[in-house]
């Protein structure tokens, strides 16, 4: 079943070759991604949210000489990201109709290949398999930016690949070293030996090597400068998927590999990464504030939002972890929505310069409301999705220390500053002759936003079903890290007691 979910998009690329006409290909791919989304929902059937470990597990022989195997499985964490991926790919495809005018078939094929790559990353339980998917997904993304991007697309695509490859090199090295020490690529096997997997000295190094690859992906300051360029140059769907899914792979990597395999190092380096999270929050916000380019502004806001996520997960509290994992989904919806809005405006005005996109409130009232709600969800307004995640993250940070939370809430203020400034520039101004007669959203475009808004409101008002996903993984990760730290200090403290607040 899981393999079917992963490879169905790849399979569905074949008929595209035989289709004719831009619209036909578009509607076919939209239908295909929708079917894929529905299929992924089947994974929820019978999924036990309380169960520890992986479900829908598939295990098959693959490269036995290397001790690598085709091992797939999902837990709440990966399932939530898989659903996010299939959902956002569907939304992104639906938004592509007018944007993509050249090499249409290739575009949709690339999109579907990308989907398979992303799903594989989240489902792989074998480190080598994971790495293969990690690289597979990189190439279609590179093509999306490089072929269907804007003016400086080559530079941006190159930069994107260069950065990620640099991280990948460390990742691959670390994986190989890990394989040499443990004799396996299998994650589950490693998890069973968690805490005693590698010598302490090596654990720190491996942690950092993994962390570097993932930090670039997140991206954490100072590895973030590929992001604004990639986002600005990528086509709308590319930006949506880049922000919505690809950045999450960094966080996912931290949770899945760093926290499970190197618990002591994770605990040891937590303050550093919380600090980097805070820097990301504040730095991203300030950068965002001084941008004139709409997409660049949104890109920097991602740096700030992902800073929150990193801050949350490194607290090793239920609130921080569950909030952080939920916030990944939230960011996919909100920032995905903002990029869709920027793309929609680009299709009409062929500019991303906010000075030229003024006063669209008059001409495009429906769009302005949709855009406004998405913007507010990104601001973290209570009642919408972003608030729940941010609140929990900050609560977790507070539990670690008041100082973390105090710096974190500054980000809450700054989010209002840069996003309201953006909204004012684009929407809440007097229209110019250029923007007076823009066309409001079409039914198709309305549906694109409505799909996002359903979840934006749902998570804001009733987040319980979504928080459920992270419950068991969050428990496991905490126990893993705390257990390892306790084991280390056993001679000093007779029994590590879980502090119940």
């Amino acid at each position, binding site marked *: 079943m899981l393999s079917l979910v992963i490879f169905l998009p790849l399979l569905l690329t074949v008929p595209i070759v035989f289709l004719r006409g831009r619209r036909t290909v578009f509607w076919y791919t939209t239908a295909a991604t929708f079917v894929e989304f529905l299929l992924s929902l089947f994974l929820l059937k019978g999924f036990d949210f309380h169960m520890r470990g992986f479900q829908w597990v598939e295990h098959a022989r693959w490269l036995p000489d290397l001790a690598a195997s085709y091992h797939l499985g999902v837990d709440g964490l990966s399932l939530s990201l898989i659903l996010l991926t299939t959902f956002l790919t569907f939304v992104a495809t639906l938004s592509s109709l007018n944007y993509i005018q050249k090499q249409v078939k290739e575009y949709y094929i690339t999109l579907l290949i990308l989907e398979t790559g992303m799903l594989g990353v989240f489902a792989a339980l074998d480190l080598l398999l994971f790495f293969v998917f990690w690289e597979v997904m990189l190439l279609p993304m590179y093509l999306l930016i490089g072929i269907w991007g804007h003016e400086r697309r080559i530079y941006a695509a190159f930069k994107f690949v260069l950065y990620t490859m640099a991280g990948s090199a460390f990742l691959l090295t670390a994986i190989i070293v890990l394989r040499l020490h443990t004799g396996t690529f299998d994650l589950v096997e490693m998890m069973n030996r968690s805490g005693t997997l590698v010598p302490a000295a090596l654990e720190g190094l491996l942690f950092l090597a993994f962390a570097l690859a993932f930090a670039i992906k997140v991206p954490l300051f100072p590895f973030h400068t590929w992001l604004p360029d990639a986002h600005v140059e990528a086509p709308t769907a590319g930006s949506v998927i880049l922000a919505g899914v690809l950045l999450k792979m960094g966080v996912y990597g931290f949770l899945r590999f760093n926290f499970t395999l190197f618990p002591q190092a994770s605990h040891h380096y937590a303050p550093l990464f919380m600090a980097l999270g805070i820097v990301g929050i504040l730095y991203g916000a300030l950068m965002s*504030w001084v941008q004139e380019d709409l997409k660049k502004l949104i890109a920097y806001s991602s740096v700030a939002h992902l800073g929150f996520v990193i801050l949350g997960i490194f607290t090793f509290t239920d609130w921080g972890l569950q909030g952080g994992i939920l916030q990944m989904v939230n960011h996919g919806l909100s920032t995905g929505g903002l990029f869709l809005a920027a793309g929609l405006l680009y299709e009409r005005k062929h500019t991303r310069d906010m000075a030229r996109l003024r006063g669209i409130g008059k001409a495009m009232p429906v769009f302005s409301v949709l855009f406004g709600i998405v913007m507010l969800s990104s601001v973290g307004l209570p009642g919408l999705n972003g608030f729940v995640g941010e609140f*929990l993250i900050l609560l977790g940070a507070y539990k670690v220390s008041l100082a973390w939370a105090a710096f974190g809430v500054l980000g809450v203020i700054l989010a209002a500053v840069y996003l309201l400034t953006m909204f004012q520039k684009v929407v809440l101004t*007097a229209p110019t002759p250029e923007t007076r007669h823009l066309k409001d959203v079409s039914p198709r475009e309305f549906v694109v936003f409505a799909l996002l808004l359903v979840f934006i409101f749902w998570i804001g008002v009733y987040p319980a079903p979504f*928080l459920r996903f992270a419950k068991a993984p969050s428990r496991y990760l905490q126990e893993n890290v705390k257990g390892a730290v306790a084991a280390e200090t056993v001679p000093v403290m007779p029994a590590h007691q879980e502090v119940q607040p």
Partner: protein
Amino acid sequence: MLWAASLALFAPLLGAILNGVFGHPFREKAHWPAVIAVGISMLASWWILGRVGFEPVVLDLYTWIPVANFVVPFGFYIDSLTAVMMGVVTTVSFLVHVYSIGYMHGDPGYRRYFAYLNLFVFSMLLLVLANNYALLFVGWEAVGLCSYLLIGFWYEKKSASDAGKKAFIVNRIGDAGFLLGIFTLFATFGSVRYDTVFQMVASNPHLYQGALVAATLFLFLGAVGKSAQFPLYVWLPDAMEGPTPVSALIHAATMVTAGVYMVARSHLLYSEVPQVGQLVASVGAFTALFAATMAMVNDDIKRVLAYSTISQLGYMFVAVGLGAYTAGIFHLYTHAFFKGLLFLAAGSVMHATHGELNMQKMGGFFRKMPHTAWTFLIGALALSGLPPLAGFFSKDEIIKHAYVTGHTFIWAVAVLTALLTAFYMFRLIFLVFFGKPRDAEIYAHLHESPPVMTVPLWILAAASVGAGWVGIGEEHSVFHRFLETALGEFHLVEWTVHRPAGVGLIALSVGVALLGILLAYSLYLLRKPDPALLARRAGFLYTLLKRKYYVDEIYNLFVVGTLRVTAKVLFWGVDRALVDGTVNGTGWTLAATGSVFRRWSSGFLRSYLLWILIGANFLVWFLLRSGGGH
């Protein structure tokens, strides 16, 4: 009770959705769903007001956020305080809705306006009804959103959309503090529910001293933002860019009092840490005087009222800070009526002058708009604190409380502020309604507003006269007895002992009010001495007041300016030069690769796929080799 509360809460939400989402059929009739929704809400609130009992009713509708032991319900907490707040909010809202039918008639955003207004009522009721701090915060930020939307309602005007943004951001500064307050409460009590927190504090008050100091201070920071106290008051004068009925409802009668409500709601917490209460009262007293001084010289009719609101909110914080929670809520309640009235009456003046705000261009309006003038006068008298109008009872109680509890300095500030209050209100009255018309053009086109506007004025005027009577007899009055169940007994112990002194205090309060009116009369009607001359004599002092102590300029320079420069420096210095420079430098060293790359990337998809295959094969080969070695 559940049904009444739900009806009161959700009717306006439904109204907002009807107008906001499915509103096209309504258009010019957009007021109907809105007014009916708020009407239902008002009736339900009155019903609750009549039924509320001794014990608070705590209801949970569903669990909003469940994470580990952090469990936040969506639920109601209904006691007499809730009921009073609901009554005030929905009643004033209803009148403002009706008034708006006339005021906003013909505006292109008519439907949007009523949708926002209904959404505000929903948010405010959520704030009041919530049974825990996290849900209170939802309402708290939601009213802020409505405020933002309504201040910037005419967003094509730059000043309006700027003001909306400013309000939201300044409020967020307070809200950041509020968030920390919620976290502190949860970390201390393991819950954010009122019932749990209050019970734990009541059962062992001394255990939590340190945490309570932190929590109450953080929460108060939120109140300083929302209720426009020093130093976060700067958004409220600018908020006057919004339509005037909005100023009446949100920026005078209801939303801005949320901070006072929050402190009163948390009175069990604040009573345990009197030192924080002292700070609250001091901030309140300072703000009261500070804002009143700026109201004295402002020529903008709405801004005078805005500063007056800030000043009166200061009084309320004096009350709740000194432990006189009932007195604070009493002033909140009377203030809602007379300040709502004053704003609506000011709106009536603007309606007649086509939006003119400058009082120097007015004068002699009494004859042409008698309803507006009379009701305005009543409101001004109530605000100035003359018996037997509403403001007298509530304000006097606060002043007395400060005196009786020995806070002489705060008391003196409060009395001085009362003098200034009467002065600036009657300066406004004399400039607008009396004397000779100073602008013939405006005066010529002047007309009284339609009944849909003047009837709400008269209803509010009646309330401004009579609303205070429920508070006669202080701690034995109907109002205090009613709120006793929620806010605890109100002790004015020494007061009964010093009755002669009390009479003296009343005489003083009334005396300063009359003095203020007299001063205004002499300056602005008799022009003896001429205010312009006086202003010149006062020199720098006058300029200082006129320029609002340069606070906005200071904030712009030191806070906004510094941040902006920092951001720019970081962007060009760190992001571009340092980080990107390093990265690109690495790139340039691979310049050869670059040129190859450029040719390479201009190919067709086929060649890319080929590259993918080559790459993947290389990878597998590499891994096989390295793996096979061991």
